[in-house]
């Protein structure tokens, strides 16, 4: 079968600036490539859980339709060539009233933080007018999840939607599990809504004057803000990475005196605990849960679910990063150190529980306003018969490839190369072993031809001469 060679449809996001950019682009990605740093090695292509990266012209290219923004490539790149596009701190100047909504992960990042109030007050020194903990909103989401589970009319087990990378993974690789996703707003979205509603109602502010910024541990959340799947538009106005403001925040912590700490804490320990794997589950008041972290572990569990196993479990918490959000690719502190640090904040919150009934005041409808769709990435062709032919060709090509999965062709493994070939995005000779075979066959053929001489030019009349000549090779 002759297959026309096409160029891959690579991420368009690379060349686009995200600030004030095209929010509605369904293939926007925070994870991008730093062209200059990329050496075109095979580290990221091999670890990508959706086989979304190919090396072309010496650079790793992300296939936008496949990327789920899990950040695994950022973590594994030895040259730091994979990065997440986030907003710079300066973006807050675009708004009159600036609000930070830090992810619970923030509590595990600083040894210097005396208390939650100390940490939250430090944000004020960075130019924010107000701070509202996403951990507080997480507790409201936990309440809503508990209510939902009481009703018992859900598809078991419920799969947490806390990690957007996992939701996108389900969209592309586990479509039959879409109905199991917990379709409640994320703590980040809810925090932004609460803050804006409060300021509009209580302070008579204009909503367009308020800028709410998520302090993010990961790339997946940035994508959720720029291209949300659960609603038309995110309530959050920007995402600033923890590592980008780490140093400024550290300095600010040093400047905030104990007596200057403001009473900003609203969250209890259950909200803070969301930062670690298992935290969301523990808040549900049931032992019948399973918490899995690390994208490859998540895939194993989702595969079991697809095979109808784990029916006896009520809730599955799935986080793409090892250890949960504390292990996010945009955090600074080592995961295990962060786990110990955050424990201090959890214990403090257990002791000084804050009287805050805002959870009861806001009667928010947390259900998603739109559903996530299946985004097939595996399908070889829209036409079933053509897909059958392509599958047959794919199997023939696959059998013929060496099966070493070396990655030198730019695809993560031989099977992926075979797929690329039938899709028209690669050639069989992209395989160095195939190429060598071809060169060898051609060389042998050339030698054979070389030894042949047209009779009129053949000056040596003895046949024995000819054999001699052949023997030389």
């Amino acid at each position: 079968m002759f297959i026309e060679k096409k160029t891959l449809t690579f991420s368009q996001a690379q060349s686009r600036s995200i600030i004030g950019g095209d929010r509605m682009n369904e293939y926007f990605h925070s994870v991008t490539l730093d062209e200059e740093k990329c050496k075109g090695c095979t580290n990221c292509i091999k670890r990508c859980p959706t086989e979304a990266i190919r090396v072309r012209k010496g650079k790793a290219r992300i296939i936008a339709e496949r990327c789920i923004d899990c950040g695994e490539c950022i973590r594994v790149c030895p040259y730091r060539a994979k990065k997440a596009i986030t907003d710079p701190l300066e973006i807050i100047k675009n708004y009159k009233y600036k609000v930070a909504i830090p992810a619970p992960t923030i509590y595990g990042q600083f040894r210097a933080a005396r208390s939650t109030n100390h940490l939250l007050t430090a944000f004020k020194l960075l130019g924010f007018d107000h701070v509202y903990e996403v951990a507080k909103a997480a507790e409201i989401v936990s309440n809503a999840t508990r209510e939902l589970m009481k009703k018992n009319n859900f598809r078991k087990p419920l799969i947490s939607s806390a990690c957007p990378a996992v939701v996108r993974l389900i969209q592309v690789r586990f479509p039959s599990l879409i109905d199991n996703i917990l379709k409640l707003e994320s703590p980040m979205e809810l925090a932004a809504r609460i803050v804006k509603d409060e300021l509009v109602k209580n302070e008579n502010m204009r909503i367009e004057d308020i800028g709410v910024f998520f302090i993010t541990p990961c790339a997946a959340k940035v994508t959720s803000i720029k291209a949300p799947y659960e609603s038309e538009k995110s309530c959050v106005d920007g995402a600033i990475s923890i590592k980008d403001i780490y140093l400024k925040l550290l300095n600010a912590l040093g400047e905030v005196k104990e007596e200057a700490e403001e009473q900003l804490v609203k969250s209890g320990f259950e909200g803070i605990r969301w930062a670690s794997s298992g935290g969301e589950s523990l808040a549900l008041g049931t032992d019948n849960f399973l918490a899995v972290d690390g994208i490859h572990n998540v895939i194993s569990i989702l595969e079991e679910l697809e095979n109808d196993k784990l029916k006896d479990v009520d809730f599955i918490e799935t986080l793409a990063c090892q250890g949960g959000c504390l292990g996010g690719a945009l955090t600074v502190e080592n995961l295990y150190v962060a786990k110990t640090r955050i424990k201090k904040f959890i214990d403090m919150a257990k002791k000084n529980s804050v009287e805050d009934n805002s959870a009861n005041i806001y009667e928010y409808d947390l259900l998603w306003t739109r559903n996530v769709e299946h985004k097939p990435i595996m399908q070889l062709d829209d036409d079933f018969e053509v897909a059958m032919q392509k599958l047959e060709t794919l199997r023939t090509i696959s059998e013929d490839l060496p099966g070493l999965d070396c990655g030198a062709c730019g695809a993560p493994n031989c099977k992926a190369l075979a797929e690329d070939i039938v899709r028209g995005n690669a050639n069989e000779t992209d395989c160095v072993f195939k190429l060598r075979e071809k060169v060898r066959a051609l060389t042998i053929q050339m030698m054979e031809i070389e030894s042949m001489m047209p009779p009129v030019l053949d000056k040596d009349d003895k046949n024995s001469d000819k054999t001699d000549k052949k023997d030389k090779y």
Partner: protein
Amino acid sequence: MGLSNSIIRQNYIIPADDFSLAGEASSSVKKMLNQLGVPPKTVKRVSIAMYEAEINAVIHAGGGTADVAIDKEKVLITINDEGPGIPDVELAMKEGFSTAPDSVREMGFGAGMGLPNIKRYADKLDIKTEVGKGTRVQITVLL
């Protein structure tokens, strides 16, 4: 392309007593169906039915073979084994009935849901079995 190309065939060997490998055949079929663009719900039915049959062959029959044929209309899965056979098929089809040993049950298998699950997800289920000789389970899922 001729008619022969309209059927995709794939054969698998189901290894004996190896739970870690059980399910590989159904995973591979699942991947093929996804590549063909078969709707997710149908893919799920095929892969669960086949997975259960595969596990049955591992637990009860010391392995066997799985032959899969896919065409435009259907997926036909034939699992053959040379195990002990099923003395009472009707009883085996009842939910919760199981002859799996405790060691297997401890691993979370053998809950007596295998055959009933296959029946639930298949459009057609045909079981031919002879005590002492073996069993052939044929599963059809329409596309």
